[in-house]
């Protein structure tokens, strides 16, 4: 092997390593969903102050939840499958936290991205599937449809309509800390991790 080829091979290896390191967040994230999760873990994300209304027609802003740890997911009420799984997962997390006496410290939130169909009434029925406690569990919709893009990009969520009239979207449980910053994103199956992070956030002191 000649000197020039040695140099070029070394260069190729260095550049490739850099591309892969950068492109996989240090060999940790091979999908953009995983990248999103690692990113918020390392850099808690501030969210825009958008205006919502909930299932009981109250005006809601994320700042209303200040002091509580928020569990949040994105849904549409006619979702046939994944949103159910998310819902039941919330229910079971809620039960576990209630057993530990922590129900005062948390807020559960479903945000719809289907603004055309999901009225507060439908959101109310949706929440009713899992609980009758409409204070602790909110179904939210944006008041201004023009802000949807902002909302989704804040969270890094992508929604694409599918051929059955529904949507494909990131199925994950998001955790906001007591300051309203996005600090965690988890698979809905990993209840242990979720509960662990919630406990950690509850015990964290607010600066």
């Amino acid at each position, binding site marked *: 092997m000649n000197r*020039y080829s040695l140099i*070029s091979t070394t260069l*190729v290896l260095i550049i490739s390593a850099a591309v892969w390191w950068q492109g*996989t967040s240090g060999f940790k*994230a091979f999908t953009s969903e995983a990248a999103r999760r690692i990113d918020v873990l390392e850099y808690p994300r501030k969210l825009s102050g958008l205006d919502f209304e909930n299932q009981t027609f109250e005006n809601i802003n994320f700042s209303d939840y200040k002091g509580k740890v928020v569990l949040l997911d994105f849904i549409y009420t006619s979702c046939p499958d994944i949103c159910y799984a998310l819902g039941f997962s919330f229910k079971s997390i809620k039960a576990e936290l209630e057993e530990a006496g922590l129900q005062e410290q948390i807020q559960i939130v479903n945000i719809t991205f289907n603004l055309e169909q999901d009225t507060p009434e439908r959101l109310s029925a949706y929440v009713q599937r899992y609980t009758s406690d409409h204070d602790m569990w909110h179904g939210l919709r944006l008041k201004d449809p023009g802000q949807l893009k902002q909302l989704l990009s804040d969270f890094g969520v992508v929604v694409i309509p599918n051929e059955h009239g529904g949507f494909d979207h990131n199925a994950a449980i998001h955790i906001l800390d007591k300051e309203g910053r996005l600090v965690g994103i988890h698979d809905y199956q990993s209840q242990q991790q979720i509960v662990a992070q919630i406990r950690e956030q509850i015990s964290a002191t607010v600066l």
Partner: protein
Amino acid sequence: MSRSILFFVLFLYLLSYSIIGQWFEVSMVRHVLIQIPCLVLAGYLFGRKSLINNRFLILINDKGLAGILMCIFIGGYWMLPRALDAALAGSNMALVKYISLPFFVGIPLAISWQRIHPIARAVIKIEFLTMLFRLGWLYLVSPNRLCNFYQLNEQIILGKCFLIIATSLSLYWILQLFAEDYREQETLKKNNLYDQASS
């Protein structure tokens, strides 16, 4: 002759790039199985036509090592679901895709493939096949969408396509091992570069 190949290359490149680029990218299958291969093929044909005897490239690409590594690593990067998403999310990465696939995958492949050791060539072929099988299988069993911009059912179709392509390709290569006569090929290629490498 040479002009028609260059036109074909340009055609492939424009096919992938222009307005129809959008049409490829809305479908995961078309994106992965048509657009990306087209971009690589454009680079490959251009490289075979115009760069294979380039003195400088031969000098810095002894035994095809640098080129084949670049082709593997950069090509491998574009197999990541995350890279596909990135290409769709912002225009910067889209541009990177249009440049890197022909120039950093197709061309290196063209100028290196005949220069690398025949055993390395066979290993790469087999690794490529098993990678297709693995990816196909993973896409079929993954409970989650791997790309945020594509639906789960498209991912499953792509997984099946991978398995079909891998199966057909292995059958084709196996048949080749029984049908062709490699003695004649060896003598024909006597003055080719890679023969020295195998001794």
